[in-house]
């Protein structure tokens, strides 16, 4: 049996790599401290939202509430949630006219008579982070600054974010931006400070028609379960296989 330097280096290298990965695995095994929010067990919840497009009146209350609750930048305007106004022309149904002045922050005042455009299809679509179960944005983060929480909310650790913008490009729904004040990525947190205390999100709290509803997909008694059974719901861009958890009722096929 010979024992040369090359073999020794290889074996020691293997030992080093394996022991390092074992130490990481061990830390994951011994983890399991209780959560910081009292009376809230993360693993008991799996948050999602149901949006009834037929009920959205385009008042923009959700946009204003979100900004007030979460201190979202006003100048320049960035959005954690916004409302889009769709006009589908019967001559070209694949290419709707989409407008969202200030994200709907000031509502959508309509100039002209309400029946001046009878040949087209009109509706509003509120949008926000879809809190995907297989979110592309968390997969591309190089530093572990964004993640899916055990209760299904996609969050950002502002202390870790480098503002490399990979996640902004990775989100197929355009839900992320760089906050110019902190130079970190920012997005909807599903009002994590509220839902962990048993309250609903600011947008759902302030939707006057009940078009948006927060739901706990793990709670069999949550009204969202019946809503999903009673309606033909879809998610945005299902072909992206993101596992989106914002369910839209009666969404037009022209919405992207």
């Amino acid at each position, binding site marked *: *049996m010979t*024992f040369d*330097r090359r073999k020794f*280096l290889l074996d*020691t290298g293997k030992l*080093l790599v394996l*022991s*390092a990965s074992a*130490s*990481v695995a061990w830390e*994951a095994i011994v*983890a*399991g*401290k209780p*959560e*910081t*929010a009292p009376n809230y067990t993360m693993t008991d919840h799996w948050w999602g939202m149901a949006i009834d497009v037929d*009920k*959205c*009146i*385009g*008042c923009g*209350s959700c946009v204003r*509430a979100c900004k*007030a*609750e979460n201190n979202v930048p006003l100048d320049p305007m960035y959005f954690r949630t916004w409302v889009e*106004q769709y006009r589908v022309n019967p001559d070209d149904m694949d290419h709707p006219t989409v407008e969202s002045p200030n994200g709907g922050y000031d*509502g*959508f*005042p*309509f100039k002209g*008579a*309400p*029946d*001046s455009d009878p040949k*087209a299809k*009109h509706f*509003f679509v509120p949008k926000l982070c879809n809190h995907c179960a297989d979110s592309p944005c968390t997969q591309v983060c190089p530093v*572990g*600054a964004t*993640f*899916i*929480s055990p209760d299904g909310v996609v*969050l950002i*650790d502002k*202390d*870790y974010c480098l503002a490399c913008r990979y996640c902004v490009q990775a989100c197929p729904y355009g839900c992320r931006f760089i906050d110019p004040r902190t130079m970190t990525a920012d997005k909807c*947190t599903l009002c*994590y*400070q*509220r839902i*962990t*205390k048993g*309250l609903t999100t*600011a947008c759902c*709290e*302030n*939707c*006057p*028609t009940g078009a948006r509803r927060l739901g706990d997909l793990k709670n069999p008694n949550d009204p969202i379960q019946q809503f999903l059974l009673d309606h033909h719901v879809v998610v945005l861009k299902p072909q992206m296989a993101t596992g989106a958890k914002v369910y839209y009722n009666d969404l037009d096929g022209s919405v992207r």
Partner: protein
Amino acid sequence: MSDLFKNKVHLVRMAGLFLVGIVAFVILRWWMVPKSFGEYGHYRGAALGEIASLPMHYAGRAACEECHTDIVAQRKGSPHEQIGCETCHGPLLAHAEAGGEPKPALPDSRQLCPRCHSASPYRPKGFPQVVVADHAPEGQCTACHNPHAPKIS
């Protein structure tokens, strides 16, 4: 056999070098990686508590209804019954926590009401809408409508 350990000083040197490297790695890792990193996954577990303890601004209608029982009675059965109080009155957690102070300013109905009720083909059919210029060219909407029970019988 003696051949194998002929140059064992080389082995000792290398082993010492590796040992120093391993110790430095463990110390640096312990010092630089936050304690909660990897608690739930490849991220800092403490971030969850930090995000959950961010300040709130909206109290929620349940908090409002604890004191304002007269408004609850007014709203009963009205088309505005299901609307959150802070949708019109603004974020009032500070007001609720301090037991009534600071008093919120009354919203300007000329600005507030048309956001929902100005006529637009984009709004759902059947939702009550008015062309504001025809319906009420001037004056507060609240001069005729009680916002908590807006139907005029």
